């Protein structure tokens, strides 16, 4: 810890107000999502706890029928928006993080193999990546989502919705990570320490994992952070299009989709609060990722 506090990295961090601010926002949002059970006044995922008569209550105004007051108002089903946003934030973050983790594992694995082994395997993996790059990742995610929905029996769809989202986003975002890892691996494998490791007879998998991997990880960290922002947006997009988190267990994207229908009728809060939360989250993650890239890439200094 002490070493970290005295490092150049931490020194740079403290002198970059944008980095500090975005880090604070992201950690606050993560904390809110983690503690949602304790902070949220209601459980928005329990349809039985909703009172339809509370629907369309404006923020901080008593409901005309029930007299109840809600910090950020309620949606069309009488769901407390503040609670829904906290729980929705949790869904969005969880899907985003897991999808990035999946994309990173696949990307690093394929990138390392492609870069280190080379030859036809390299061509195969990279052409596959090229092909996938020609499609927008949201289209691939929708394709995977559609296939999964078709295969799953209806009673499992809601339970599996989150898993399917993670899979579809994770499988659509691995390409950039694989490309970066492959590039760095190509550079690293020509270095003397790798030659030395080969000379003392270490096997290929050990060289890849213990020697090359740690040296290609810092760009992966940067890309993973930026991919996290992309994954959160992808989840919101899918849910906005109605193919993501179900309306009974809304994520931020689902809440925005619902709110969109009430834009003209004056119930602005149903759209605005979830949208602001999504904006704050995606923007901060992106800004932090940008700063990380600038700091960890010595050539940009």
């Amino acid at each position, binding site marked *: 810890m002490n070493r970290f506090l005295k490092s150049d990295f931490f020194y740079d961090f403290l002198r970059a107000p944008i980095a500090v601010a975005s880090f604070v926002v992201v950690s606050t949002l993560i904390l809110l999502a983690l503690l949602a059970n304790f902070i949220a006044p209601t459980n928005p995922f329990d349809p039985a706890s909703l009172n339809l008569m509370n629907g369309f209550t404006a923020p901080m105004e008593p409901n005309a029928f029930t007299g109840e007051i809600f910090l950020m108002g309620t949606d069309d089903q009488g769901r407390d928006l503040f609670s829904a946003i906290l729980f929705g934030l949790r869904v969005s973050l969880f899907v985003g993080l897991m999808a990035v983790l999946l994309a990173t594992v696949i990307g690093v694995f394929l990138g390392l193999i492609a870069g280190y082994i080379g030859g036809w395997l390299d061509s195969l993996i990279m052409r596959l990546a090229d092909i996938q790059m020609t499609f927008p990742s949201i289209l691939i995610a929708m394709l995977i989502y559609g296939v999964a929905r078709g295969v799953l029996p209806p009673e499992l769809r*809601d339970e599996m919705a989150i898993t399917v989202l993670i899979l579809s986003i994770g499988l659509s975002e691995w390409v950039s990570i694989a490309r970066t890892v492959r590039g760095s691996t190509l550079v690293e494998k020509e270095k003397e320490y790798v030659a030395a490791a080969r000379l003392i007879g270490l096997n290929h998998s050990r060289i890849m994992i213990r020697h090359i991997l740690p040296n290609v990880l810092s760009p992966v960290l940067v890309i993973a952070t930026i991919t996290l922002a992309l994954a959160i947006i992808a989840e919101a997009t899918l849910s906005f299009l109605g193919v993501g988190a179900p309306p009974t267990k809304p994520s931020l994207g689902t809440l925005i989709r619902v709110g969109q229908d009430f834009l003209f009728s004056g*119930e602005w809060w149903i759209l605005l609060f979830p949208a602001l939360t999504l904006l704050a989250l995606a923007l901060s993650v992106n800004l932090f990722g940008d700063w990380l890239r600038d700091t960890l890439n010595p050539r940009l200094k």
Partner: protein
Amino acid sequence: MIKKLLTMASAVVMITTPTFSETIRWARAGDSITLDPHAQNEGPTHALAHQMYDPLLQRDMAGAIIPALATSWKALDNNPNVWRFKLRQGVKFHDGADFTSEDVVFSLNRAMADGSEMKELLSSIKDIRAVDTHTVDLETHGANPLLVNNLTNMFIMDKGWSEANNVLTPHDVAKGETNFATMNTNGTGAFILVSRSVDEKTVLKSNPNYWGNNLYPTEVSKIIYTPIQSAATRVAALLSGQVDIIQDVPVQDLDRVRETNGLKVATAAQNRVIFFGLDTAEGPTSNLKVRQAMNIAINREAIKKVVMRGQSDPTGVIMPPFVNGWTEKLNAYPKYDLEEAKKLMSEAGYEDGFSITLNCPNDRYINDEAICQSAVGMMGQIGIDVTLDAKPKAQHFPIAKGGEADFYMLGWGVPTFDSHYIFNYLVHTQTDKRGSWNPTGFSNSAVDAMIVSLESETDLGARDGTIAKIWGTVQDAQMYLPIHNQVLNWGMSKNIKFDVQPEDKPHFQFLSFE
């Protein structure tokens, strides 16, 4: 100079002022399912078909029956089992073929064939005969005084065209079949199909040889029909002038449309009831107490106030007030009573509840998905864990009709304005002739016999008695949980003169501009 400019300006005005030739851009939430006029008995499908095809007789914009391809009809004096239809002379199909009695015989037989959803409407018919080129006799099993009411959506196709294109029978939508008539038409109607792209855009142009051109001078020269599922996008299209008329202004946007310059909202009670259907053959819903519990766990007033913003008429029977057989007493809905519902659940042995999937359309009825969502919450309050499966109607209907669903939403309009239509589709045991929309498993041979007897009962007093009796059984069995009757809100440009049709079927040949 100024005078010259003014003359020029007025000349320009004269050129650009529409004189009986205008394009109508028309939108609603969902598209027609097929252009085959006998394959689907569904509102939006018939609404589009009415522009291109004609029935023998039809309902005008106020709901009254007026002649279309038949000019007169009456039961024969010597044989009340035979209705004689005199057909209109000189009518031509869009491809130029002459309209004759053999087209009527062909079309009505086609509408009774396998795969047709119209066959329940013709279930009383024994034989259809061409008397001469412009006279057709419809013979029924017994005297059916209300037969003509069943023909308002019974479209007439050209026999020659159907033979040439191998569309002698309708295609079965639920089985995923299609035929040439799915995307092509040859009717006698006021408009001719120009192009169609499913769920995107359908273009029609006016028919210069339309038989009704002298009766109803058609002011619309072109119709561009675009389904827009998203409520916000649909109302935005109207507000921004991208469309001229939408049939389903979202209830939350009524004031907004009313207050917008150049737009108006026309409102009327709709001949359509919305309800949930339950599987009475298997599972927890086969228990009457569970169905009773679910019925009183639905807070109809809250749905009206919050989801529908007052734009609905809660009901306790699956019958709109337009229909013969409707009474205040049947229409009265049960009191919302959670305690009683919980008690019934525990009496049924389900004090811990159960899980069930609710199949729901999301582009068919007004706020269909939102109603289903609120039902999920209401059922949750009596321990029923409901998974909502909301889908576009093209996917929802085969599920709802096929009997796969345990709990589903459906809406029912009654074009005949008579209870028999509801019974024949929704109450009669599901057979290949009747009960095609009764997947609930409800089957009662005494009721079936009563339903069939309605078709040949000439004593209208006795007939109404039978109707009341059947309703009694339906209300006791509670395989359907009624929610409300819909209220129609058409949003349109102020310069359009158009009555709201209670069946939600605009006939654009009746539209005029101000």
